[in-house]
Each structure stands twice: as structure tokens, then as C-alpha cells.
């Protein structure tokens, strides 16, 4: 936790900034610690322990703006650092658009830092032995593949970790970590706010080899702000299932297919939209959503909320880096763009109404073209019938100015609602706006451990190359 002395030092920096010639300033102290135990093939491979503290300092001097940070927190060092920072700021050109947010927009209800219930005091009591136990107890064990594979094959007995039959495990890396993060932010207009959170995480990456010597990798992870709700035991079997299901990929003819994209990767089709809604890109004409505010751009089935004030959920926040209070609200409603993300600087520059600087915890609501909500991936595959299920996006990009995208994918061909075979070395290409106008369905299966709650999605007529 942030101590009284650290809070006092942070407030003192405001006074130092004023002494150095800053008419306005914002000081933000972050403090975190992290402990990690990783395993390789069932043995502890690495232990890491770290603590971080850093001050970020934003100065407004004679209409000029500068942003600084340091982790040298000795008071004497800080005084020199802030004086030099003010001197550098005065060398820059004036910018009348730079300012602190208006006091009536800043957060008032983040007093203790724990109001969002994502700080678990259990973090303070975990011992090094417990950390080792978390890491070692969740190593993939023989017989770990409890669920049937995606391809419906009887995987129990199909292969063993000893490599006796169809496939063998080449390597398995697991990683347990726990961390806490605290933020104390003040500004010269009276802002005082706190945020505290914890996170317990476990992930596995493994490589298997089939009888032909071909390698396949699988990975899975989970995270929770609460130790009680932390479920690391689910990770190993899920990672193994992902690897085994990829054995025997086949080519697939280029053409237009129905795309079903798994909730683990579907956020990659939302990220380009979030980037284009950033007021900075709009102002630079580097956004395919410039002039889209208030217009119906996407399919009416697209409803994207931002839910930053979801208590108990990973990534929830009461305020952004300017100290502006967050609120739960609609970003895209029935396909209509309701919001750009406009910080104080961009609001002054563009005349747009200021908002939080960015989306915090977006959630895409479930929807289906026929009105019947299908929550899971399999229900959506059943609904679509034929197509390609994408389970991984391995690279690619989207042009922010035009919305044109190209992504390399990995996944499965499905026919009549059943997965037929894995596919690799394929690409999807198109335009983000056109893609979202062809939305068929959005499920309700996003895992809460993700900060972006984007479910399994389905789109018609997507170009696949292979």
C-alpha cells in the first residue's frame, strides 16, 4: 500500500513544481510489486521478485506543457529533477490547448482506493512456499486432457505424456505470478484520488510433437483480482487441448467464408474501431471513423458498452490518467457511433466534448440476426452451419486511416455445425466497417479475466486466402 510518507512526498512535489515556476501540475505516484515462479517441464525454472515505485509529473509553465517521470524518489533528487523539468518545459512552444481537466470532471469517489473491490488483502499473506505450490501443482499431468477434443476424437488414450502413442509433450512452461498495484494522484486544482488492485495469474505454454515430427503449440492463462476466485487448475488442460486439436492441419481453398471468431481473439476485430474512435486520430485525419459521430456506421446488432465501474472485475477503474471520473455508458449503440475518446487536450483542440481519455472495460452485447441469442461458440457454429472458426490471430494489421485489414489466422474448417479439420497459414482480409456491417451473431462467452469483454462473433462473406 502507499504509505502516508509517500502521499506526503507526492503532495510536496506539487509545491516543488510551483516553486519551479509551474502554474499548474499533476503528480501521480505508482507503486507495485510482483512475485513470479515459472516452471519448465515440471520443475521450478525461475523465481522473480520485484518492487517498483515511480512518480510521473506533468507541468504547465507559462502556457507550455511537459511530461516527466522518475524512480529516484529522494526528496533532494526530486527537487532538482522538477526544477530541470520546468526549465525544459519553458523551452517548448506554448500550447493553449494543454490544461488540467476541469475540477467538476475529476473523480470524487476514489478515496481509499479499494472501493472497486479489486484489491485482495490475501496478497499480503502469500508465502514463497505457496507460490511454488501454485506453480508446481498446476503443471500439466498425464491424463490432463479431460474434455473431449474439438474434433471429437477420444483424446484420452490417443496420446500420453510419455509419447507412447500419437503425440508427445516436448516442453511445458508454466508461470504463476501475483502482483499488487497502487496509484495516488493529485493535481494543483484539488484532485486527490487512489486506486489499488491485485492480480493472481497463471499461464501455460506447451509444445507437442506428432509422429511425423511436426510441432504444435498451445497456450492458456487465467487471472483474477481475488485469490478465492483464482482457478489455475483450468489452464493446463485447456493449453494441451489447444495444441492437440491442431494436429493434422490441411489446406483450405481461398474464397469467401462465414467467419466465426473465438472470444479469446475476437477483441482484435474491435481494437481497430477503438483506435479510430480516439480523438487524436480523428483530429489527424488518421481515422476511418472521422465524421462518424452520431451516424449509423455498423450493423444495428453492434452494441458496445464501456463498463469501467464494474466492481470486482479485473481492469475496472474509477478514473483515468488525468483523474477524470469514469462512467458506464454506450460507445456504439445499434450500430450508431455515440462517442469519441477525447482527453482535455483534444477537447480544447477540436471543440469536441471531453470524455475519459480511452475506453476502459469495453463489453460487446450479445446479439443474433434472428433475434435468438446464442451464448456459446458451439451455438454460434451450429447457427452458421458452414465456415471457418478462427481461434488465433498471429499477426497482421489494420490501416487506421482506411480500416483495411489483413490478419494471419489459425483455426478450423467447420461444416454443418461440426468442426472438420484444422487450418493454418491462412489470411483474412477486408475492411473493418464492411466486416462489422456483415455481423451475423455475437455470443456471451467472454471470460471475465480479460479487460475487453468481446464474445465469440460471426460475420458473413469474409475473404480467406491460403
Amino acid at each position, binding site marked *: 500500500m502507499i504509505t502516508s510518507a509517500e502521499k506526503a512526498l507526492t503532495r510536496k512535489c506539487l509545491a516543488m513544481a510551483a516553486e519551479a515556476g509551474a502554474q499548474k501540475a499533476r503528480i501521480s505516484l505508482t507503486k507495485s510489486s510482483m512475485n513470479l515462479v515459472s516452471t*519448465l517441464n515440471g520443475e*521450478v*525454472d*525461475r*523465481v*522473480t*521478485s*520485484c*518492487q*517498483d515505485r515511480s512518480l510521473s509529473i506533468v507541468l504547465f509553465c507559462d502556457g*507550455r*506543457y*511537459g*511530461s*516527466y*517521470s*522518475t*524512480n*529516484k524518489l529522494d526528496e533532494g533528487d526530486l527537487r532538482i529533477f522538477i526544477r*530541470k*523539468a520546468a526549465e*525544459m*518545459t519553458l*523551452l*517548448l*512552444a506554448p*500550447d493553449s490547448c*494543454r490544461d488540467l481537466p476541469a475540477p467538476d470532471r475529476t473523480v470524487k469517489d476514489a478515496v481509499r482506493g479499494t472501493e472497486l473491490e479489486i484489491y485482495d488483502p490475501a496478497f499480503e499473506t502469500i508465502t*514463497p512456499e505457496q507460490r511454488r505450490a501454485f506453480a508446481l501443482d498446476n503443471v500439466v499431468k498425464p491424463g490432463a486432457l479431460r474434455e473431449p477434443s474439438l474434433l471429437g476424437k477420444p483424446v484420452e488414450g490417443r496420446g500420453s505424456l510419455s509419447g507412447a502413442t500419437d503425440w508427445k509433450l*516436448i*516442453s511445458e512452461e508454466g508461470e504463476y505470478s501475483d502482483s499488487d498495484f497502487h496509484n495516488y494522484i493529485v493535481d494543483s486544482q484539488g484532485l486527490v484520488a487512489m486506486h489499488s488492485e491485485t492480480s493472481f495469474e497463471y499461464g501455460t505454454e506447451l*509444445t507437442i510433437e506428432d509422429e511425423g515430427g511436426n*510441432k*504444435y*503449440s498451445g497456450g492458456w492463462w487465467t487471472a483474477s483480482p481475488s485469490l478465492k476466485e483464482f482457478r489455475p487448475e483450468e489452464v493446463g488442460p485447456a493449453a494441451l487441448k489447444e495444441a492437440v486439436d491442431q494436429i493434422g492441419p490441411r489446406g483450405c481453398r*481461398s474464397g469467401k467464408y462465414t467467419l466465426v471468431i473465438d472470444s479469446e481473439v475476437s477483441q482484435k476485430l474491435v481494437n481497430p474501431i477503438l483506435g479510430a474512435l480516439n480523438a487524436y486520430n480523428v483530429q489527424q*485525419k*488518421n481515422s476511418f471513423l472521422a465524421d462518424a459521430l452520431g451516424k449509423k456506421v455498423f450493423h444495428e446488432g453492434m452494441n458496445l458498452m464501456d463498463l469501467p465501474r464494474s466492481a470486482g472485475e479485473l481492469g475496472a477503474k474509477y478514473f483515468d490518467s488525468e483523474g477524470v471520473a469514469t462512467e458506464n455508458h454506450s460507445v456504439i449503440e445499434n450500430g450508431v457511433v455515440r462517442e469519441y475518446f477525447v482527453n482535455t487536450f483534444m477537447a480544447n*483542440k477540436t471543440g469536441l466534448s471531453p470524455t475519459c481519455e480511452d475506453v476502459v472495460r469495453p463489453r460487446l452485447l450479445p446479439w443474433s440476426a434472428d433475434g435468438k441469442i446464442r451464448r456459446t461458440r458451439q451455438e454460434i457454429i451450429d447457427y452458421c452451419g458452414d465456415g471457418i472458426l478462427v481461434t488465433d490471430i*498471429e*499477426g*497482421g*494489421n489494420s*490501416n*487506421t*486511416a*482506411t480500416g*483495411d*485489414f*489483413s490478419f*494471419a489466422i489459425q483455426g478450423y474448417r467447420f461444416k454443418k455445425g461440426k468442426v472438420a479439420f484444422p487450418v*493454418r*497459414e*491462412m*489470411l*483474412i*482480409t477486408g475492411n473493418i466497417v464492411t466486416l462489422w456491417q456483415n455481423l451475423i451473431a455475437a455470443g456471451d462467452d467472454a471470460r471475465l479475466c480479460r479487460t475487453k469483454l468481446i464474445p465469440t462473433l460471426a460475420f458473413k462473406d469474409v*475473404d480467406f*486466402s*491460403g
Partner: protein
Amino acid sequence: MINPLHFDIDPARLPELVAVALRSGGDWCDLFFEDTVYTTLLLRDGEVSSGGSHVDYGCGIRVLCGEKTGYAYSESTEWGNLVNAAKAASAIANSNSSYLQKDSHNAVMAVNSMKKDWRESSASEFVPVLQAIESRIRAKDTRVHKVMASLAWQVSEILMYNSLGETIRDTRPIGSIVVTTVFVKDGKSEISNASRSFSVGAEMITDSLLDGLVEQAVRGIDERFEARRPKGGKMPVVMGAGASGILLHEAMGHAFEADFNRKGQSIFSGMMGKPVARKGINIVDDGTIAGNRGFCRWDDEGTPGQKTYMVEDGILRSYLHDRISAKFFGVAPTGNGRRESFRYNPIPRMRCTYMESGADGTLEDIIASVKKGIFVDQFSNGQVKIGEGDFTFYVKSGRLIENGRLTMPVKDINIVGNGPRALADIVAVAGDLRIDDGTWTCGKEQSVPVSCGIPSVLVKQLTVGGE
């Protein structure tokens, strides 16, 4: 008195700190002290009205016990905090072996190679540089809507000490200029990116450097407005000299990093000494090119920078090693143990990865040999799956090749392939090797500066995304 080690630590106590870290045993301990100052200036909307500086200071302590690692760091060099970090790193070991203290006689002090030290410059010197970039770009093309240009420099003071009693001091500069230009024509926008980055001081800023950046910013913009997506599918790909070196980085370089091979994860595991490419092809990872973004006088474990032939005359000759993998394979470290900062333990990383020039004529000769294919020369991000060897990279611009001639401009496409297959499928290598000096950063677990290069090459077949 100025401390020759730069850091606020008594040199005589470094062996004592190592002894604390090795109190429970272990084969190796190293200390990595870092004091980095990072400064930026940003031109936007015609004014250099944003800037800042950032200080990162601390010490990372690593204990190796066989192939296992204990790691901790402290953001303070106060003795008590360093001892706590050393104790945390010692947790990896559990024997009672005793560490024999060494005297730190073997000390190497680096000279500051900067001709003009960034830290002795004022930000006001560089404001006109960014303004000149914008005005020159605007003078070249009337369709320029916005120019955003940033100049960033960082200087890291490094002190390494290890359980052999070796002390190494290094001063590491990096300067970078990045220019993003938005062009508008008939209501449509196109973006160009240009960058230069070197491990040198402020002497990097010259008229010819700015000319090169401006030329890159406006080059090919007519084609980008005309460019379309090609029909996708498998086809021959001609990769232009320079930035196409991303092919080597993604498709081969990562798979040659020895940690992946030590764990049996890489598709190249078990291929040492075997042919992986056509005879005559040499692929190098080089930390010795002075001023290059991937230059390493020493790596972050104190191993001297080297030029490492990964593939020589088509044969796989060496992986890229840190100390752990070198010991595992019974070879000498290759100077590839690198880390983002004192907050991270070093792992095998590339430096400047390139293919040496070949003897298959010129780029024009290679294009003339292709009946139907694609030529690519500008890229952004890439990615690879180490086990499967499947790689992808994003092509910002290129052209179709039809009957041996460049035709329709193309853009915003992805190319995918498989590393070993693509390497074996390089069927022509021109004699025009060029190292690309852009701001390449590799993101394998940690971010480190790298660079890449390649002569113009023909890959027999790759999958190109399209309509």
C-alpha cells in the same frame, strides 16, 4: 570525487553483494546496474509543444543454478535494498555450497563513444531540427495534411559485475527520429512512416540524415493512393533490399535463438550442421557494427559483442546463445544475452540480423525472372510461432509483378509462410545488401532495439493475403 563506476555504490562491496546472492548456492551471479535518462521532443500541428524526460535507475541481481534463474531488482542502490534483492534472487538455489569471493581486478571501463553527448545538449538545439523536417516535407508535396515528428534520445550508464570478479562499465546511447505524415487527396487519407535510429550521440543529426527521412516520407505516396489489394494466394515473392530483412528476423532469427532450441520448442531444434538453405547463403547476427541500433559492445551478461554466422554456405552453424544456453550446448556464449532494462533477466536476443550479398545479379534481374508474383519493400510488424515455424509480416507497400515487370501498386496485405520452407525456397540473392536503419524493436517478452537487412531476394512461394 567522481565515482568511476558512476553508481552510488562502493566497488569494494560488490563481491559482498554477490556472496549474499550465492548464500544458498548457485553457479553464477551477476549484478546489472543501470541509470537511464530518456528524453523526447514532439512536433505536432506545426509546433514543438510537447516533450519530457524520464529517469530509470536500479540494479538487477541474477543467480543461476544450472539452467534455473533467480532474479530480483532494486530501484535503489542503498545497501539494505540491494541486500534484500540479492536474498530474493538467492531463492532459486537450495544447496549449502559456499561462494569463494573474488577480487574485482578484472575491470573494463568503456569510453563514451558519443562525439556529441546528448546529455550535454539542450532541447532547444533540436526544436529547429523537427521544424526543418516538417517544412521540407511540405515543400515536397502539396497533399501533406499533418506531420508529426519526434526526436528521442536515451543514454544508459551500465555497470556489470559478476561472480568471476569481472567489472564492466558501458555507456549506451540511442537516438531516434520518427516521422508520420498524413496525406489527403480527394477526401482520402494515406499515412507514411519514416524513421532513423542509431547507437550514437547527437552527431547523428546531419543534413543528409534529414534529407533521407524526408525522401522516405514522401516516397511512393502516389502509388499508395492508387494501390489496391491483389488477388490473394500462393505466389513468388521478390523482397527488396533493406527492410525485407524482417523476413530473416521473424522466419528464421527467432527460431535460431538458443532458448527455444534448448527447450526443444523450435522448428530448427536438432538441425545443427544440416543444410537449411541454398548453398552460398550466409545469414549473420552481428553486434559489432558501430553505431547500428543493434550494436552491443558487450551484451547484458558481459560477453563481448560478436558477429555470429547462423547459416554459412546454407548450413546451420550456430544458434544465438546467452550463458545458460551456451553451457547447455557446450559452446561459448555468442553475446546475445540481452535485456530491456535492469527489471528483466537477460535471454537470447537478436542484434543486427542480415543476409550477406549473393551473386544472382540485381533486383531488376530478379524481377525480370518472375512471370507472375509480387514485389514488396515496406513493412510494419511481424510475428512467428516458434514451434510450427509459421510467420507473418505486414506489407505496407509493393507492386504486382507481371511478365517480369512491376505493375499495379499494392498495400495493406499480409504475407504468411513457414520458416524452414521459406528459407529453403530462397532461390535468388542479389548483390545489393542494405541494412535498414529504422526504429526496429523486437518484443520477445521484453523490448530491445534491433535492426535487420537483406539483399533483394526471390522466395519461390509464399501466401499473400488478398481479395
